[in-house]
């Protein structure tokens, strides 16, 4: 396998007496989808925030392209090619797709001493970049509020990629979506992978993760229970490893028993 673009080596993070992450190692290579699975409170958020520069690890180190780094801020992380797409997607619903695409990094055009927003370039680029991800916009000037959930994800991802992301951290991108929109997002993930981008896909939905993932890391109570390649594990094993897999089986048996008792 190729050299990892970013890796965490035995990272721990404490908040007072709470052990949020303990001795977790995690990496992602270009053109790979690495799924980070775990229940609520397993430490997924802490891991993402450590990777995206919001937190600095208390122990262990972060390497980008093999070199140890210390991220000073999320902006610093973004500059080294790691982009986080949070659930709120950082979009402004009443603004146009093109303006959202370039928000904070507006393309300017000079007219003598005056420089103004290059709307043509912004419209064209937003449209092209989203087409490259497989979403055909009706109109790059339509407000983001009129886009579907999948299209919004596409906008956020295409924007990150356009501005130089080599690794995308997608925080639960499918969790708030319906079946169809979720499959749109899964296609986007495959699309990003095909373009040589490393994707860290955070989810608690094993079914979504298993479809697109190359490797799977499970977090449980702040610790990694191991990383598995797709060939090494099947969907049911993965489900059972997740917190809840075993519990659900137990619950099922219990209910079946009480159902028999009640019926009898």
């Amino acid at each position, binding site marked *: 396998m190729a050299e990892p673009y970013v890796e965490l080596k035995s990272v721990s993070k404490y908040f007072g007496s709470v052990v949020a992450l303990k001795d977790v190692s995690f990496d992602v290579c270009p053109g790979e989808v690495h799924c980070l699975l775990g229940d609520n409170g397993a430490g997924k958020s802490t891991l993402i925030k450590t990777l995206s520069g919001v937190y600095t690890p208390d122990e262990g180190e972060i390497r980008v392209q093999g070199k140890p780094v210390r991220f000073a801020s*999320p*902006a610093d992380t973004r500059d080294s090619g790691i982009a986080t797409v*949070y659930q*709120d*997607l*950082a*979009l*402004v*619903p*009443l*603004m146009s797709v093109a*303006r959202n695409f*370039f*928000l*904070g*990094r*507006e393309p*300017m055009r000079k007219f003598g001493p005056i420089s*103004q*927003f290059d*709307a*043509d370039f912004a*419209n*064209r680029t937003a*449209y092209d970049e989203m087409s490259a991800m497989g979403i*055909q*916009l*009706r*109109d790059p000037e*339509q*407000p983001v*509020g*009129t886009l579907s959930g999948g299209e919004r994800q596409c906008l956020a991802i295409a924007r990150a990629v356009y501005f130089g992301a080599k690794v995308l951290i997608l925080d639960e991108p499918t969790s708030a979506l319906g079946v169809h929109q979720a499959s749109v997002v899964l296609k986007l993930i495959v699309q990003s992978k095909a373009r040589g981008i490393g994707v860290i896909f955070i989810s608690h939905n094993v079914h979504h993760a298993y479809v697109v993932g190359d490797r799977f890391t499970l977090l449980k109570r702040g610790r990694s229970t191991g990383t598995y390649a797709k060939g090494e594990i099947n969907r049911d094993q993965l489900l059972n490893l997740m917190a809840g897999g075993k519990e659900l089986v137990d619950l099922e048996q219990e209910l079946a028993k009480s159902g028999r008792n009640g019926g009898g």
Partner: protein
Amino acid sequence: MVSEIRDERVRSVSRLSRLLARPELGAAAGTVLVFVFFAVTAGSSGLFSAKGIINFLEVSAQLGILAAPVALLMIAGEFDLSVGSMIGFAGILIAIPAVFWGWPIWLSLLFTFAVCGGIGALNGLAVVRTGLPSFIVTLGSLFMLRGLTLGLTRGISGRTQVSGVHELALHDPLNSLFSGQVLSGLIAWLADIGLIGKRADGLPSISGIPVSIVWWIVLTLACTWLLTRSRFGNWIFAAGGEANAARNLGVPVARTKITLFVMTALAAALFAAIQVLVTGSADTLRGTQKEFEAIIAVVIGGTLLTGGYGSAVGAMFGALIFGVVQMGIFYTGIDTDWFKLFMGAMMVIAVLFNSYVRNRAMRSR
């Protein structure tokens, strides 16, 4: 836009549905309605004579000077309730140094703009730093500035009015910027060819276009350019639409808002400069309720109270409606007591209409 590049796969949205999603649509329609209404009821009264037109345009212009930057601030999601008091304060800041301390007018004007800009920045800083609603913070400024104006004026002059600015301003280099008229030659020519009525003494019924109207148009154009064509405009929409998202993308939301508070304060100072130099006096009660009139004009102009959506051109229509209705009621002979009832109702209707337009814009096209 000079050349619009369209992909053949994009279904073109009809011009009409695009137009219907514009924020200023309601105000433009309202303006037409108001004009038609007064053309019917007051057509013969002189409201639409050259003199009448200049009269209502002057009222509109003064409000419009405030409304354009207030629109930008409201699009960024903030209110400035202190602009009315700022007008009174700026007025005495111009008049007192000139009348009592012998400053030249140009110096007291520069002084006033600097002080007002500073107070605007303080308003903005207070809002951004404390995270309190700007409604409350600037409500505080509204009262503080009015109190300061009264206290200072009475303390220094012993009265609440300062007059005698006219004589001092007569030869001042900045005087004509705020109180002059433009295009007098054109007006005279129009009168000669009979397009504008003449008075009994043979002079045209108006001698020129008041410079405040020029300020109004220039400011509206400048604010529109800022909003739709500049980087700053993108930040204004983002700051009001979704401040958190904007911040995450590196937009300096705090700086954007502070700049806008400075702009509304400077607009209030400009309003005061025009008023003081045209009337020749300052009064501690000047500008009362202008903050609300500006908000009414902006809201009629299609700007959302919650921010993130709106236009400066809309605010211009809002101010125009305001001026026409105010003068129109006067010309038709309706008791002017009814004016406020009308404007209040107009605003409520505008808000309802705007939320309808907004929902339309947000619906999948």
